[in-house]
């Protein structure tokens, strides 16, 4: 074996987790694309896929931070349902304007997260128990708020949170021309342009990080591997955006999601507060003795989770155009599963935003694909459970082999 392939092999072994996750997602998508006879990748389905999973992904961002900090939040599904109910009652029953309702709901989410975080951080009650209580409390409060009924519909201005699409900024003739070129009925140029820009950004950031690593003599991945990975990711972005462009364009919620993913990736990897959360989860005592205010940080992690759960609640209610007492039911399990599939450790201190997002997509694509295939909900549950176990087993197996 020549040295280059050896280097690639060694790198793949060391980063089994990251690559495994990416390839698993691709493999799952290819698999469902084939067995659904191409339905999976149809523009309308891709749009649906994003809309269906946006709230899971939004909550997975907060859940990742909570889990990295060494805790868990079982209440997010209930909180999400509760905030959706709150929004419905305020808008539909009290005729409150959307611009007032949204901030109120987000503040309510922060308060809920803060209340739970208070008991976890300052009274050291295990988060499992506090949030289990929260799960019951807010499930009950949603029922009470809605009086057991579905409340809706919402005004248009609220629905666009989820079901709106970014407007076209480019001249209409461009879109018509491109639609003709690609044999599509219409074409949203802005969406496609954003896709190209995002792909370019991925390549640029990858190159920058690579250069930095080389400057400091860190072993970076072999060039071949780097380009394969980067090109796959950017091609996938361009491909998805192209598909979206030929339908109704980029959904608003995907923009929100994309911005949030970038913000949280930045915060966790590049800021002081992000660093401290990893330290807190990695070794709380050592973090505390290094001058980190561990209680306050734990508290803030839960406040943040509350806000994101509230946002997810708004997105969900806007998509269904109604608030139902069952909204968000058992969704916390999907969110938690996404984070663990994404490589976070139960004991805290490790896990990445991008991993959680990919984990959420793996769950989402499976949900979607199996539904198209007409697989019953019973089998779906079994399969999802086994995938979660397999992902974590793969992790532990790798660690044992290395250790």
């Amino acid at each position, binding site marked *: 074996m020549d040295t280059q392939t050896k280097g690639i092999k060694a790198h793949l072994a060391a980063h089994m987790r990251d690559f495994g996750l990416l390839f698993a997602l691709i493999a799952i998508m290819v698999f469902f694309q084939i067995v659904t006879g191409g339905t999976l990748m149809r523009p309308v389905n891709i749009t649906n896929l994003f809309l269906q999973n946006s709230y899971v992904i939004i909550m997975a961002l907060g859940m990742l931070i909570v889990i990295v900090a060494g805790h868990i939040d079982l209440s997010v599904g209930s909180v999400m349902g509760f905030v959706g109910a709150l929004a419905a009652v305020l808008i539909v029953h009290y005729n409150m304007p959307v611009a007032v309702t949204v901030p109120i709901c987000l503040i309510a989410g922060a308060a809920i997260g803060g209340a739970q975080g208070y008991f976890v951080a300052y009274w050291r009650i295990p988060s499992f128990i506090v949030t289990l209580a929260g799960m019951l409390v807010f499930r009950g409060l949603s029922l009470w708020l809605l009086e057991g009924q579905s409340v809706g519909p919402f005004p248009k201005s609220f629905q666009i949170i989820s079901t709106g699409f970014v407007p076209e900024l480019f001249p209409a003739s461009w879109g018509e021309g491109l639609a003709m070129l690609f044999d599509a009925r219409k074409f949203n140029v802005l969406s496609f342009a954003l896709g190209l820009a995002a792909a370019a950004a991925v390549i640029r950031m990858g190159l920058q990080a690579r250069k930095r690593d080389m400057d400091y003599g860190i072993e970076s991945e072999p060039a071949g591997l780097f380009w394969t990975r980067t090109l796959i990711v950017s091609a996938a972005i361009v491909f998805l955006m192209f598909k979206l462009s030929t339908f109704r364009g980029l959904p608003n919620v995907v923009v929100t999601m994309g911005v949030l993913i970038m913000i949280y990736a930045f915060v966790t990897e590049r800021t002081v507060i992000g660093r401290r959360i990893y330290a807190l989860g990695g*070794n709380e005592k050592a973090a505390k003795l290094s001058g*980190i205010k561990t209680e306050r940080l734990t508290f803030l992690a839960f406040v943040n989770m509350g806000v994101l759960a509230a946002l997810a609640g708004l997105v969900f209610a806007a998509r269904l155009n109604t608030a139902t007492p069952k909204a968000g039911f058992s969704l916390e399990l999907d969110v938690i599963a996404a984070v663990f599939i994404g490589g976070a450790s139960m004991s805290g201190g490790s896990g990445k935003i991008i991993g959680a997002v990919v984990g959420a997509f793996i769950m989402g694509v499976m949900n979607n694909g199996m539904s198209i295939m007409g697989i019953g909900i019973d089998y779906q549950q079994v399969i999802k459970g086994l995938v979660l176990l397999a992902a974590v087993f793969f992790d532990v197996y790798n660690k044992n082999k290395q250790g």
Partner: protein
Amino acid sequence: MTTLLEMRDITKEFPGVKALDQVNLAVKGGEIHAICGENGAGKSTLMKVLSGVYPAGSYDGEIHFEGALAQFQGIRDSEDRGIIIIHQELALVPQLSIAENIFLGNETAKAGVINWHEANQRTSALLKKVGLKESPTTLIDSLGVGKQQLVEIAKALSKDVKLLILDEPTAALQEGDSRKLLDLMLELKAQGVTCIIISHKLGEVRYVADTVTVIRDGRSVSTLDAKAGLSEDQIVRDMVGRDMSDRYPARTRRAGEMLMEVEDWNVWHPEHSERQVIKDIAFNVRAGEVVGIAGLMGSGRTELAMSIFGRSYGRGITGTVKLHSKEADVSRVDRAIKAGLAYVTEDRKSLGLILDETIRFNTTLAHLEGVSKGGVLNANAETKVAEDYREALRTRTPSVFQKVGNLSGGNQQKVVLAKWLNTSPEVLILDEPTRGIDVGAKYEIYAIINELSAQGKGVVMISSEMPELLGMSDRIYVMNEGAFVGELSADEANQERIMSLIVNE
């Protein structure tokens, strides 16, 4: 009296260290035999060999028990023969009752069904023997440490004990409880039970022991007959009598202006609020000075350091800390760091480092402000800081992106030092800075300490290794049971004096 136990030429090696070197121990039936020695002399290792924690074959030498060669493969084997150890940390389940604990693993059961009546009855009889009036159904939780110790002894008696070994049994006890325990030992002796007691407290040793074996540096130095009247000086001399060669880099002493003064420092136990852990302690450190704190394990040295460093230990803390003659706010860790304090913890793995993270991550952790702007980290600045300390402290690692969990003990300690030096402290409190580090790395750590003091920083060094304290300190405070019992200058300090300050409470 016949010899009950004889350990002949026991040698036990760990990778790189000879923990026991041809140790001999002979215990006569029906006597109380004391084993004395400094921390790390090899007492606990010897007892682990005896009880089978280190199974036969993993050490050299022979154990003869009741006249026959014994080859224990585990604790179970030695317990079956009637050898029972009561460790410093008690092995009781707090949520279970006395009776449940006593018969744990040895239940009075038939076909898996426990006969509680029999268990309680037998427990009552055992408790009477050790002088406890509690009901067998009392939960361990509700007993004090002293009584828990007695329950442990009752548990040992339930197993037909022939040789009872007590490892530092009075370390956590108050005066009255200690006396009760020692009297119980004498009573058991009268009933024919042979005991081995491991203790630092020479007063106690003289009170109960018939024979004393002194261990030093993994060798049995002497066996003394205590019945004929034994002076503590004699034991102390044997415990510490080793020569000091140049294991320490030379240092020039230059105590400058007053840096830190701690006054009237009092701390209470975080859970047992009636127990005062630190009593009226006052000390000071000058610029460029290395001040040692000597004392045995459990004397409260770590608790003192941690209570000063942002009240990380204890409650009800009173007293003042002055830096440059001005009262400093050390009420939280971040404030203590800001005031100019740094504390290198005793247990670097569980308190000092985040083992799953890189050297760079750990190096900058206590002073992220230095490598960030507006809360955003500067990766290049971070790497530079980590690289600078790697060079300055000569940390041996392929890169600063190595996980600290993969480093050797000495290099891990350098990363902890780097983390604290990066906060630019004025006073560093080093708690057991060379524990678990090989000799070469120790010398390097000493050199770093000397360099820091040459830069005008104040260093407080807590250590259980007396030669290290004597070799490095300009001044030594001697601590015992939460209070300072003496202060010695480098010229007047020697091991005998420190030991006798500790043992002559």
